[in-house]
């Protein structure tokens, strides 16, 4: 059953940060834009309330999904308990249990807002170290788009410090970093004598009023929700685009993509929650549904001319799934560290972002997690069986002295790490749910040996007791690779402009396009790639 047909210059599937930045840029350029998102809209105030009244077990376990209730027509992952939406297999199955949110604004509703640029060598990994793959462009080609993304998002960074290694900049960060809270400051002091440079993380978070939003006042609640709007979410760009005339349709689940004789995309079709279908035509199409939903949609939308999936003549759609597999450690320090002052991710150790060893093993990022220890420490204190004043003291001790440290590892593109459609599980609309096979690979495993040594050294420096280290790799939700970029249409899905090799008018604005993942969070790079794709679309449509 089909309803009306909608039409615009550009239609974008996915109203997260990538779709939002593109929608805003294209709307400002005078183009008509329709943005479709599978999920609902969220209101900050309700999400704040959902979080406040969540059970302590969920808070202590860092449950960031429950405040964003999933809907049957657009399920997203929830692991408290696992709702089974994303099924993973392989040696490191547990390391690909990724947190995602479907809905207008996307997963940047909850993130730590770490907004790193990649190093030039991260983007030329194969050329530099002979492993992995290269981006189809150089750092210099992406640099202006990095800055444009930082400006639109409002990124603060250490303008007043020289940090090595770091990505070259043509202009300073739009805002300068806020000072560390006590925890980051003390951690930095304690590890410095061991040669660890703990430096400020660039963050999409306001250190002064920016874009009509207030400066951060340190609620330490970036995940699952910034309660005051000091942190950037994709929803801002979506709403700004909407105010300029973009049409945003929530609860619109794209499931079918039409192509013509030239293999140009002619239409997308979406279901509403009642499975009523609507057709949308456009001159340019964008899928901006990040690393899991983008390849999933391309596979779901296979048609007669593209039987293995849209944009999939290379058979690379869904392959090369990457992340930054982590090892996490927690302990009780010998002195109060007072985690929780400021935002949740203010600093990290960046000495190991780059080096000659990358030909053989991963580069790594070591981070001090500044999330307040109250919930976690409180639950642990309760488990001791203490009561009364002794319990109070135990809660205080653990809240003050509890420390979480992690190591994130660079992974290499491996076609065997693959997203496929489940033959069994389907959502309420009958759309197959995703399966992922995941093996972090020997490159990571070799690095992990020394990572564990680093963690032990750090725990020792802080006089840590009750040291707990994850025995398996943990997911970090930095979903990359599934629609990989390259110059050769035979082994890649998109070109350097995120344009699909198979369909000249279809773009994939997603971390899936990234060919290598460095050591740092992928969001700013995804954002920059998306703005570059928007330039290609503007150029296309100006030309004809």
């Amino acid at each position: 059953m089909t309803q009306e047909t909608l039409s615009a210059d550009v239609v974008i599937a996915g109203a997260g940060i990538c779709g939002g930045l593109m929608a805003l840029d294209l709307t400002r350029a005078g183009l008509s834009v329709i943005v479709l998102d599978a999920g609902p809209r969220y209101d900050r105030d309700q999400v704040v309330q959902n979080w406040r009244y969540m059970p302590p077990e969920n808070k202590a376990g860092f449950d960031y999904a429950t405040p964003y209730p999933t809907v049957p027509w657009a399920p997203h992952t929830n692991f408290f308990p696992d709702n089974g939406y994303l099924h993973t297999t392989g040696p490191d199955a547990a390391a690909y249990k990724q947190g995602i949110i479907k809905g207008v604004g996307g997963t940047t509703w909850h993130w730590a807002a770490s907004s790193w640029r990649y190093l030039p060598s991260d983007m030329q990994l194969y050329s530099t170290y002979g492993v992995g793959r290269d981006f189809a462009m150089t750092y210099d080609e992406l640099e202006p788009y990095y800055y444009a993304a930082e400006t639109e998002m409002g990124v603060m960074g250490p303008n007043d410090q020289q940090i090595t290694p770091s990505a070259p900049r043509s202009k300073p960060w739009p805002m300068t970093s806020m000072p560390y809270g006590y925890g980051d400051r003390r951690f930095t002091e304690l590890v410095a004598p061991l040669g660890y440079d703990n430096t400020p993380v660039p963050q999409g978070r306001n250190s002064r009023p920016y874009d009509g939003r207030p400066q951060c006042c340190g609620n330490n609640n970036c995940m699952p929700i910034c309660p005051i709007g000091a942190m950037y979410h994709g929803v801002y760009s979506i709403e700004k685009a909407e105010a300029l005339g973009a049409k945003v349709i929530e609860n619109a689940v794209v499931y079918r993509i039409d192509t013509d004789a030239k293999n140009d995309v002619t239409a997308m079709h979406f279901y509403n929650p009642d499975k009523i279908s609507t057709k949308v035509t456009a001159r340019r199409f964008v899928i901006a549904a990040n690393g899991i939903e983008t390849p999933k949609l391309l596979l779901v939308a296979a048609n007669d001319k593209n039987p293995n999936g849209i944009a999939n003549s290379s058979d690379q759609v869904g392959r090369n799934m990457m992340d930054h597999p982590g090892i996490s450690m927690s302990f009780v320090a010998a002195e109060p560290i007072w985690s929780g002052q400021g935002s949740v991710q203010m600093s990290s150790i960046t000495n190991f972002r780059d080096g000659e060893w990358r030909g053989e093993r991963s580069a790594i990022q070591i981070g001090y997690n500044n999330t307040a220890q109250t919930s976690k420490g409180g639950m642990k204190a309760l488990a001791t069986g203490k009561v009364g004043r002794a319990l109070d003291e135990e809660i205080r001790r653990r809240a003050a002295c509890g420390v979480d440290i992690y190591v994130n590892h660079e992974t290499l593109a491996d076609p065997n790490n693959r997203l496929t459609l489940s033959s069994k599980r389907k959502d309420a609309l009958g759309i197959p749910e995703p399966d992922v096979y995941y093996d972090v690979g020997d490159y990571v495993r070799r690095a992990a040996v020394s990572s564990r040594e680093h963690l032990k050294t750090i725990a020792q420096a802080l006089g840590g007791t009750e040291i707990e280290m994850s025995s398996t790799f943990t997911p970090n939700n930095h979903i990359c690779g599934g629609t990989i970029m390259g110059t050769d249409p035979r082994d890649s899905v998109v070109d350097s402009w995120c344009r699909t090799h198979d369909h000249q008018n279809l773009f994939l604005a997603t971390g899936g396009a990234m060919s290598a993942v460095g050591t740092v969070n992928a969001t700013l790079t995804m954002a920059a790639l998306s703005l570059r794709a928007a330039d290609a679309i503007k150029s296309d449509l100006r030309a004809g």
Partner: protein
Amino acid sequence: MLSKTISLFALCAGAMLGPWGAAGHAEQLSGAYIATTADCAACHTDGKNGTPFAGGYAITSPMGSIIASNITPSKEFGIGDYSLRDFSRAVREGVRKDGAHLYPAMPYPAYSKMSDADIAALYDYFMNDVAPVDVAAPQTDLPFPFSVRMSMAGWNLLYGGGAPLVDDPAQSPEWNRGRYLVEGPAHCGTCHTPRNLLMGSKTSAFLAGGAVGPWFAPNLTPGAGGLSDWSDADLSAYLSTGVAEHARASGPMAEAVEFSLQHLNDSDIAAIVTYLRTVPAQDTAQADTASMPDIAAFVPADHSANRSRHTLADDASGAQLYETVCASCHGLSGQGSADGTYPALTGNVTLEPAQSYNLISTILDGVSRTVDGHETLMPAFHEGSLVQPLSDDQVATVASYVSTKFGTEPADITAQEVATVRTGGPVALLVKMAAPGVMAAIGAALVLILAGLAVMLWRRKRSR
């Protein structure tokens, strides 16, 4: 020739000065400083990023937008061909060089009290120190009948102000300086003095508090409901930084602090305070501070049954809204932050009943105030807010809640009041009278006179 005229005039003006001069100060202050005391930039510079004095700022009114003019010395587009006499006539009498009347969005009734010497210094500043901008500000284009500027002539006879102030020898120089600033260039009464039916300032109720579109300018007199509870130190701090223990400057007052008052000398701030202490007391509604709630007794509401939804229900309680929208900065008990960066709501003057419009406006439009290079921002919660748009019902609910919980007495702010503030504040009787049918009955000329005046009550609304 021009410079000769200036110097002659300045000489004459100088000769008139006594020990503190006609303007209450011993030495002639610079024109730039005088322009700051008169807050010319507030309207004639188009916002924080506007070109200085190039005009273009749209002051919205129910009759249409009044565009502030280019007052740079551009000969073609500004006031470059104004003589001192032309300039004085425009600033103090509201008449342009070409004879056309200004709309009283320009506070010339107050400026009429400025000294000849200050006007001359101001003229000198605009002519010689302000860069000419050869760009036309958009023309004000009000629809008929408001387009007939001549209608202001009659009103000016009644309310157009008077002569430059003459010092009162019985009072101290500081008092005289304070009076000069308050009544003259700083034009406090333009907002803080209520208006009569004809929209003229009610001189019998000087500084007793007045409506300014969606905002309320409170009572500044020593009477009940005025400044009697304010210490000199608090008042000085408020004027020069926008921050006092129980108050923060927001809306048009934040602009006055940002563009004008923070730049005034300490002695001028002290003079203003001195003079305000002596204006005739006017009693208005007074808050009962004895009934201030006990912060420690505050118990958050329990609504654990309402968890896990996408959007707050339409009937969300005030407690829910406060906890989810406000408490992350102002604190669960309205206590603010210890250092006052986030003001306490308990004891905050904005929760007093007389200021309900200020409370609503603050929630809708937020606060933006840059003092000493540091920007303070409370986000807006209007329909275009990126942080959290709130409906009329929600604003009414949360405003009533914070007033009742943290203020002095129970409040029942209605959605209708919020809707009124959201659309720019209550419509004055005079503007209603400008409706075609009514107008025919009472005569176009009278209405024109009156309606033109109403403009000054619609201070520019923050752009949304």
